[in-house]
């Protein structure tokens, strides 16, 4: 399992670096907008973004299935709301301030490593990321697959924004990721016109099917704030993927480039 160990090692370093970078960018670019949106959310009578769709998620089952919208404010347990205004749902939540930030950083690093594991594994099938420049291109592909494509149908959303059923959106998100990745892979690694046409169909298909949309788009969030958030999310994710790909290239290059005699031990 040396290959497994080495791939995980490369992914861990790259994910750690890119995750820390992303956490810093988020603290500066996206989290302030989320906090602003939560002010509107509170003003709008508690958290109703969870329940825009009649098909309730498991968290709303606890509040005896409030039909939709502002009914939640009366159904929600008042003491919990008062104690932890940041809590979106029932249950434990990190306290505002440092604790909340710390958990975001941890989430960034852990999922950074998760994305890195996927990136390194997939790129190894295609011969591996040889240097930082190749890594940048792989990063662009990752950005297209995990941010651009799903973001077209399901734009980044702020708290208090209506959305369709959570599970259906998650299924559409993952299906779009898989279809886009398969399409890009066919274009990049198969020199065949019919397969390239199939690739375009794969990339377009999720958007013809269409992402699950809410019944109503009514929200207290100003259009300008949301637009700012969409830009911030897209740009921070672009930087994350470029850094992730480049660091994978650099770390992996050190493995294979400077230690050719050790190559077999990496096998």
């Amino acid at each position, binding site marked *: *399992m040396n*290959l*497994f160990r*080495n*791939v*995980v090692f490369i*992914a861990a370093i790259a994910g750690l670096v890119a995750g820390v970078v992303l956490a810093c960018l*988020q603290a500066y670019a*996206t989290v302030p907008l*989320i906090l602003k949106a939560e002010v509107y959310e509170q003003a709008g009578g508690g958290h109703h*973004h969870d329940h825009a769709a009649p098909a309730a*998620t*498991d*968290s709303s089952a606890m509040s005896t299935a409030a039909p939709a919208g502002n009914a939640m404010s009366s159904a929600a347990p008042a003491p919990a709301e008062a104690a932890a205004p*940041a*809590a*979106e*749902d*029932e*249950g434990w*939540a*990190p306290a505002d301030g440092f604790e*909340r930030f710390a958990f*975001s950083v941890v*989430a*960034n690093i*852990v*999922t950074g490593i*998760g994305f*890195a*594991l*996927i990136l*390194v*594994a997939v790129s*190894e*099938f295609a*011969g*591996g990321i*040889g*240097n930082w420049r190749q890594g940048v291109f792989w990063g662009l592909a990752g950005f297209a697959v995990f*941010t651009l494509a799903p*973001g077209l149908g*399901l734009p*980044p959303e702020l*708290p208090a924004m209506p*959305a369709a059923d*959570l599970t259906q*959106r*998650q299924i559409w998100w993952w299906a779009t990721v898989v279809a886009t990745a398969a399409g890009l892979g066919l274009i990049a690694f198969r020199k065949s016109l019919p397969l390239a046409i199939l690739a375009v169909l794969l990339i377009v298909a999720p958007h013809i099917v269409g992402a699950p949309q809410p019944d109503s788009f009514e929200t207290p969030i100003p259009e300008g704030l949301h637009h700012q958030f969409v830009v911030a*999310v*897209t740009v921070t*994710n672009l930087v994350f993927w470029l850094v992730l790909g480049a660091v994978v290239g650099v770390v*992996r*290059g050190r*493995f*294979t*480039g400077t230690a050719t005699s050790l*190559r077999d031990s*990496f*096998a």
Partner: protein
Amino acid sequence: MTTASVSLGASVSSQSRFMQLALVALLGIFVVGFVGFSHIDAVHNAAHDYRHSMAFPCH
């Protein structure tokens, strides 16, 4: 570009190589899925700002 042709694990059998890389990819999907997509309230709340900032389907 010479380093580009050096694959990790070139000397293990292709079947073992495929299995190990597939395992890595699955591990990554599991990690992202748990932190970013699980419906457990505590996990959602802990990674709330992260989920929004990644444009993951949230709430």
